[in-house]
């Protein structure tokens, strides 16, 4: 009951804040939502891996970077549009994810958490350095006309292409929720996440499930890599901020809370763009993630101490 009332209060406050923003600075809201879509779509697969395999994949953003490079050179070679490359990239990164899981992560699942972090951090460095060695630190960008499509409402004008990230985030969130709650394979994955011993007892191959979940997450991140390429220039370090931001979002939402990731992304995307809209605070936008995560963690530990 109390929880419901609190949710209602938060919802009412956010609607009020959004309405105020629409009137006062509409573009902050628009670009904030677009950024939120991108952040959420990248964070959701990382949350999936953390929720079920219980691994913090510090190479998550780097995996998206690898996918974007693969999509870029695939598109160049075949004269394809990155949008056409989404599915093939997803398939390739899924296979890549399966192999990475079997060769490395699988062996660290019983190791202490610190060793797991060191492993995935090592993978992140290996991935970005490998790309740096092969393709140098040069940036690559796809020249695409449709990404500059814009729209005018009244006297404001804004780019609309990035709304595609919002759509993808919503598709990821709903698709995954459906998969995890309505299909048998998904339920088995949830069961493995909640109690691997119990899952093995009922005949579920726990390690195979971990591998499949990791591959699925990489498929999603691979699709995002190709989509990211439509909008942004890519370079070896392009993925790493996404690792940290995804981790912040998951920590804010709480493990296993996919709708929470959407909510946290909107909060952070809008906050970032709000700061960016004013000259004196522009440079503060980059740290808003970290400030908010500290606030959330402090609030949670204070609440934990009270109860």
């Amino acid at each position, binding site marked *: 009951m109390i929880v419901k009332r609190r949710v209602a209060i938060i919802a009412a406050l956010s609607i009020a804040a959004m309405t105020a923003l629409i009137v006062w600075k509409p573009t902050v809201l628009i670009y904030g939502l677009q950024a939120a879509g991108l952040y959420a779509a990248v964070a959701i697969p990382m949350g999936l891996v953390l929720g079920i395999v219980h691994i913090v994949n510090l190479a998550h953003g780097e995996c998206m970077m690898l996918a974007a490079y693969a999509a870029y050179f695939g598109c160049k070679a075949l004269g394809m549009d990155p949008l056409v490359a989404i599915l093939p990239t997803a398939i390739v990164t899924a296979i890549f994810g399966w192999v990475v899981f079997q060769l490395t992560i699988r062996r660290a699942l019983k190791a202490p958490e610190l060793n797991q972090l060191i492993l995935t951090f090592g993978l992140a460095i290996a991935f970005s350095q490998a790309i740096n060695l092969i393709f140098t630190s040069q940036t690559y960008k796809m020249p695409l006309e449709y990404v500059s499509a814009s729209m005018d409402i009244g006297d404001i004008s804004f780019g609309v292409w990035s709304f595609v990230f919002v759509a993808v985030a919503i598709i990821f969130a709903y698709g995954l929720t459906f998969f995890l709650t309505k299909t*048998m394979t998904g*339920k*088995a994955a*949830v*069961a493995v996440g*909640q*109690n691997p*011993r*119990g*899952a*093995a*007892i*009922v*005949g*579920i*191959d*726990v390690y195979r499930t971990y591998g499949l979940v990791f591959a699925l997450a990489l498929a999603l991140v691979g699709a995002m890599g190709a989509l990211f390429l439509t909008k942004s220039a890519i370079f070896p370090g392009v993925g790493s901020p996404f690792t940290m931001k995804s981790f912040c979002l998951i920590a804010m939402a709480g493990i296993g809370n996919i709708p929470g990731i959407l909510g946290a992304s909107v909060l952070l995307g809008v906050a970032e763009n709000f700061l960016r809209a004013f000259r004196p605070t522009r440079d503060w936008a980059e740290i808003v993630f970290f400030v908010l995560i500290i606030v959330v963690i402090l609030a949670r530990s204070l609440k934990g101490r009270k109860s």
Partner: protein
Amino acid sequence: MLRIQNLDCGYGRMKVIDGVDFEVGAESVGLFGPNGAGKSTLIGAVMGMVKPWKGSIELDGQRIDGAETYAIARMGVALVPQERELFPGMSVYDNLVLGAAYIPHAKDDIPTQLEKVFTLFPILKERRTQCAGTMSGGQQRMLAIGRALMSKPRLLILDEPSLGLQPSIVAEVFEVLKRLKSSVSILVTEQNVRESLKAIDRGYVLENGRIVLKDSAEGLQTNPYVIKSYLGI
């Protein structure tokens, strides 16, 4: 059915099970012994959760020592663990369905198995949409038994099914065991020897990782050592 020969196993360097010979046929078998005797460890070895150091474990003549837990479960061995090991965030219904979904010989009969389990434990039917983690200890134990039965097991293993339950529910659990006896081989560990002797055909007494006694239920009931140490008369 199940045949264990000269089994040694343990944790790290500590040997817990020491040269155990053990058999379960088409019958109900009890495994008794004080806390820490190694009952759960022996069951862990059968289920592939504790790796055997020496000796063999066979299921219908096929070696299963060294096999993975999920593979042993798929061969028809169902475990009701001491710690229940349910999926706490999932509904009673989902817990039950998952009991059968990955067992080749059971996954096509989920509706009929559900009916059987609901007949044995009407409370599970009433609560089928409830989150497993929010149920009482007794209800969770029934759910764990129900989940095991969903897999149409050939061998049902129960590790201390009466542990921590109030007497009325203990009686209900043993009543169910008696009803199941005719259709499935049962291996049950217990500290509540008095109640379980009514539900089993034969029993073993395990102390410090060794089998110190094995006899029929009647034999155990009248054995002076069992009477003194376990029946507390």
